[in-house]
């Protein structure tokens, strides 16, 4: 078994509802793993079991090969989907407090809290109450809380939800930096397009079960279609691809979906033959496109299960 976090065949039901029904995950050190799926797919429940907040019905959660215990959990940084901070506690005091709970000595906790507060651009607010901060700044405090004890594993539940673009960039930058420093990162999202570009690997779940796992590039390559976009410098009349579906055609441009197994040089040649080409691309579909069905079908079952 490789190092890092390993989750094997994890299951948990709430009454008749199988919230998590056999999930496997592996988060090696230094890797960014995307945990993707619709709301209610079982992501939060899985993360809560990793953190020991919920007990699994069956399955195994190990860290470097040994079962995760309280001591190991103090090396995990957790950012819950429902952000949670003490509204009437000062910023620095609060981050320090969570550092203490994670087992840091008082002085160390205070020093690490100061570092992250400064790093996240909150130094002017360090002695303000959290409730006096804007939503974006509260998110930064939440991130500081999950980072204060320099965790070896970050578990971030929907870290980009509700972030403004600047905060989202800061979040991406810090997450990448932590991974570069050797920390494993498990981040969940129901917006595939937001995270697919930054993850080394993704695990896509639906209704508590894994539907796909692998490197984004491999998952995309395995898709049955390719997307071709062409723009001509002149009107090409009634151009049609050799095979595949036309998604959009304007006379000077076309977006078509082609079978993945078709001969691409032949397809490209056919487009070029129609007129002078100014732009042409052939790409596999994005994860968001591939799993749009999975995501939307589950989305109907609405928000969070009673956990």
């Amino acid at each position, binding site marked *: 078994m490789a190092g890092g976090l390993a989750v094997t065949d994890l299951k948990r039901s709430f009454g008749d509802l199988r919230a998590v029904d056999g999930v496997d995950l592996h988060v090696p050190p230094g890797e960014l793993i995307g945990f993707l799926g619709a709301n209610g797919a079982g992501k939060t429940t899985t993360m809560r079991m990793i953190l020991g907040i*919920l007990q699994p019905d069956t399955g195994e959660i190990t860290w470097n090969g040994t079962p995760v215990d309280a001591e190991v959990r103090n090396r995990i940084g957790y950012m819950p989907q429902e952000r949670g901070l003490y509204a*009437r506690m000062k910023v620095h005091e609060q981050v320090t407090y969570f550092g203490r709970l994670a087992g840091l000595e008082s002085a160390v906790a205070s020093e690490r809290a100061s570092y992250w507060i400064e790093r996240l651009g909150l130094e002017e607010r360090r002695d303000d109450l959290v409730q006096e901060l804007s939503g974006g700044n509260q998110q930064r405090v939440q991130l500081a809380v999950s980072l204060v004890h320099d965790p070896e594993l970050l578990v971030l539940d929907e870290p980009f939800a509700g972030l403004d673009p600047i905060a989202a960039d800061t979040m991406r930058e810090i997450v990448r930096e932590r991974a570069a420093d050797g920390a494993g990162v498990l981040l969940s999202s129901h917006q595939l397009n937001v995270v697919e570009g930054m993850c080394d690997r993704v695990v896509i779940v639906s209704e508590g079960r894994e539907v796909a796992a692998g490197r984004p590039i491999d998952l995309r390559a395995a898709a049955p279609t390719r997307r071709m976009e062409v723009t001509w410098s002149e009107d090409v009349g009634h151009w049609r691809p050799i095979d595949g579906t036309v998604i959009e055609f304007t006379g000077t441009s076309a977006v078509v979906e082609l079978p993945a197994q078709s001969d691409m040089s032949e397809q490209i040649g056919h487009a070029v033959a129609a007129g002078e080409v100014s732009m042409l691309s052939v790409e596999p579909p994005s994860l968001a496109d591939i799993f749009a069905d999975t995501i939307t079908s589950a989305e109907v079952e609405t928000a969070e299960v009673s956990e």
Partner: protein
Amino acid sequence: MIWTIAKREIVTRARTTSFKVLTAILFLGVIAAAVAISTITGGDDEAAEEVTIGLIGEGVEYADAFAVPNEQFDAEIITIDNAQAAFDDGSIDVAFDGSTVIWEGFSWPSLDAYVRTTVTQSEFVERANDQGLAPTDLAELFAPVELEEERLDGSEDEQGVRIAAAMVSTVATLVLLQTWGSFLTMGVVEEKSSRVVEVLLSHIPARSLLTGKILGLGLLALFQMAILVSGVALALLLLQGIEVPDGVWNAVPILLITFVLGFGFYAAIFAAVGSTVSRQEDAQSAQLPVMLPLFVGYGIAIASISNPDSILLRIASFVPFTSPMVLPFRVALADPPLWEIAVALLVLAVSVPLVLRFAGAIYRTSLLKVGTRVPILEAIRSRSDG
């Protein structure tokens, strides 16, 4: 770890205005009561009053008698020629010429009595000498006869002190358990509604969180109880003229023990109740069923003031829901048999870990359930996490 949580509870709560105000009121109230009691009962303690007595003519013979120190009056003796003149320049309070006590206007009754007694006693000594009696014989002659007092309705001065002490212990227990219990509920609801509990549970088990919270708030509650008890004890020590019965002193350790145990008993229930609601607005109504037995205990105690041996009071002192209010009340008021105190304390002490376990399970299961109120039965039935 638990101490880190307890410390946060203490620091945050002690910083609030409500805590400072409540503590200040307790402190000032108790000091005021102590001062009031000492002024009412402490007349003997006052310094002797300084007066000037003017002696004229034959009155001068009594100068030595007036020179004897007296508890009530510290008399300066001057010899005068004219009473009117001495009154006019304000140098004397009373004059005596050997047969008449002379006042400027109305007499000062206690000073008048003092002058007359002093003169009479001086005359007694004189007459006794004439009859060949030594001063010691005289003392024997005038030794007071000790008389017993019987009150047919059985009332005692002590009883007032006992009733007061019993009332104070019950009211203090009720108010502090209710106040701090409700702080605990609010704290749990705050953590649940702000969802901070999820971050907390990722670091520590629910059990430690609950223990830390009870410990922190319990220490603050005990601090306020200690202020109250020491203030009352001070007031009792200042009581003059009435002996404080042993039962009242015995009630002090019993009160502190039942308060600590009672807090442990009720705190877990208050916390469990808090964990079943998601909004502060619901906390108030959720607490009502927990407050009820507190008030029942208080009501039983107050209703039994004149009948401290009532069966109801005795039963209530064994039931852990009411014993924190009732047991110290009984000990202060009457002297219940030692075995009853021991059994009542034992029952309470044994019930605390049971309640902690039971309420702790409700707390753990309900903590992450957001939305509508978690029915208690469901919380008990469903499996406990964490």
